[in-house]
């Protein structure tokens, strides 16, 4: 009640239209919060590395040179070299594209599939809901990473299958969010009003329900990007998906793992750090986006 009273006291003059107000708020969130600003910078860096990585690196990421094998970081090799003398900095940068591609493709795929089926389930209910619910229940019955392992093992050890597996294990999450959001709006006043105005169900779904759910789904997308990256890296860490000598963060950490006990820390550390920063970036961005979309639901 106190909160209600306070908001009511606030002046109601907000003449800005929806879009420009949102943009203004977005700028406020990005510039006003140094952490979000930091994550945004990191995001730009990731995108640049993913797009132009191969042109930026000082060495060929695949070129071996046993003469400089296992060298710690130095001016010549800022992140050191691995057991075959490959330059780690070049490998870490070039790997960005593959790691990001897996995450982006799988998240885009699950956004579309999970979003559509979840909204349909929540809006139409009935057998659609039962079918979609049963499907995601079944996926949820598995520990998700273990299921991804099983899927990649069965479908074959390729990057495409990593994407498919990541899509499948993220599916229930998207379905649940889309379903819940569609379900609460199914009989909302404005949806009923749209029915009275002569809108068909499909049109209501597209013009009334979808625009209200999309922002929430976008936040989820950013948050699951990090999870998708972790998942793909985890799979390649245990030898699934990507094969050496392809530069990829997970497999590079796996290669470096053997050298940790003998003190060559840099081989595992730098790809691991890259991985961590990428995930960190998407999680922070997700939190920032949530602030923009839904200022009430802050954590």
């Amino acid at each position: 009640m106190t909160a209600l009273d306070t908001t009511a006291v606030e002046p109601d003059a907000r003449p800005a239209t929806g879009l420009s107000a949102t943009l203004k708020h977005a700028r406020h969130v990005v510039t006003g919060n140094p952490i979000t600003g930091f994550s945004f910078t990191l995001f730009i860096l990731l995108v640049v590395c993913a797009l132009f990585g191969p042109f930026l690196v000082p060495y060929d990421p695949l070129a071996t040179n046993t003469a400089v094998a296992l060298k710690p970081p130095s001016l010549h090799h800022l992140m050191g070299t691995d057991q075959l003398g490959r330059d780690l900095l070049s490998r870490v940068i070039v790997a960005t594209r593959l790691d990001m591609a897996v995450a982006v493709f799988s998240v885009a795929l699950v956004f579309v599939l999970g979003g559509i089926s979840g909204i349909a389930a929540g809006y139409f209910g009935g057998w659609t809901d039962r079918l979609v619910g049963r499907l995601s229940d079944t996926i949820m019955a598995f520990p998700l990473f273990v299921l991804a392992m099983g899927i990649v093992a069965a479908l074959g050890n390729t990057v495409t299958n990593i994407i498919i597996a990541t899509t499948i294990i993220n599916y229930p999450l998207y379905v649940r969010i889309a379903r819940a959001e569609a379900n609460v709006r199914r009989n909302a006043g404005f949806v009923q009003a749209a029915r009275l105005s002569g809108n068909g169900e499909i049109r209501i779904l597209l013009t009334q329900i979808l625009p209200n759910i999309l922002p929430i789904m976008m936040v989820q997308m950013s948050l699951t990007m990090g999870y998708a990256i972790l998942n793909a890296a985890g799979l390649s860490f245990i030898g699934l998906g990507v094969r050496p000598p392809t530069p990829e963060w997970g497999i590079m950490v796996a290669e470096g793992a053997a050298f940790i006990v003998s003190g060559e820390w840099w081989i595992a550390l730098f790809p691991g750090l890259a991985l961590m920063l990428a995930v960190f970036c998407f999680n922070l961005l997700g939190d920032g986006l949530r602030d923009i979309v839904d200022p009430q639901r802050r954590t």
Partner: protein
Amino acid sequence: MRSIVLKRLATAIPSLVGVIVISFLLTRVLPGDTASYFAGPAATPQAIAEVRKQLGLDKSLPEQFARYVVDLAHGDLGNSLTTGQPVVTEIANRLPASGELTLLGLLIALGIAVPLGILAAIREGSWIDHLCRVIVTTGVSLPVFFTGLLLVYLFYFRLGWSPAPLGRLDVFYSAPPQVTGFYLIDSLIARDFETFRAALAQLILPAATLAIFSLAPLARITRGSMLAVMGSDFVRTARASGLTPKTVILTYAFRNAMLPVITTLGMVFSFLLGANVLVEKVFAWPGIGSYAVEALIASDYAPVQGFVLAMALLYVALNLMIDLLYGVIDPRVRLEA
């Protein structure tokens, strides 16, 4: 109470059916010739034909499924190519190692995350709240295998505080007589404190790795739900009737705030069982995760499928327990049955 338990058991049946169907499909959708996959890369044509017959791949799909279910009911998951042992036996032998690791990891995580989340919520904006935020945000961003390696480098290579990350027990010790399969408990039963200490030394790093990993979601949800409950009407009523902060927080807020945490436990278990595989690989832990990874590398399919199925069954059972626990705390669910 019994009818509630039975009813909850019944709700697990669809999940169980789903798990069995999916795991069956996973063995049959292998691209190319399933039999040659199962027979292994070095198999002769005769061996492949043998495996084909053995798996019943010459029969129709429903027949194959029926056979799969019958085999499953007899506890037959096939044999491992590399060791020649039945998969079920190997998984059963290795399960305690994984179980001990995962449970200890979860206990550590709960022991830290729940008090941290509560303190962060009741002192919103204080340093402990900021600490909680930092832990939560970094925790979810740390790849679990990377955390493990960092800990090994720091505590084994740099500081020398912990033993080499190789298995459950240093070679100089012998395993305690098996009762539960958990070395910590078994060594205590045997009153062999030396072994207990050694087992704990081996266990502490991988368990800490898992704990760091699962800490973040638990602390986050504890803080969030505690905040929500502290702002709720009934906490206001409790405060307005002069109840002490201790009563308000423990009797009123805490129990209600635990409900979402228990629900999240299901998700945390899902993460933990997956992370377990990675951690076992990093620490050469002789559990079912590293068994599956070894089999994967050797293209030995039966153990992988058996592992997926076993994990899924375990997870269904865990979810069932979570549901029952929820019912113990929340009367609304209890009376619904």
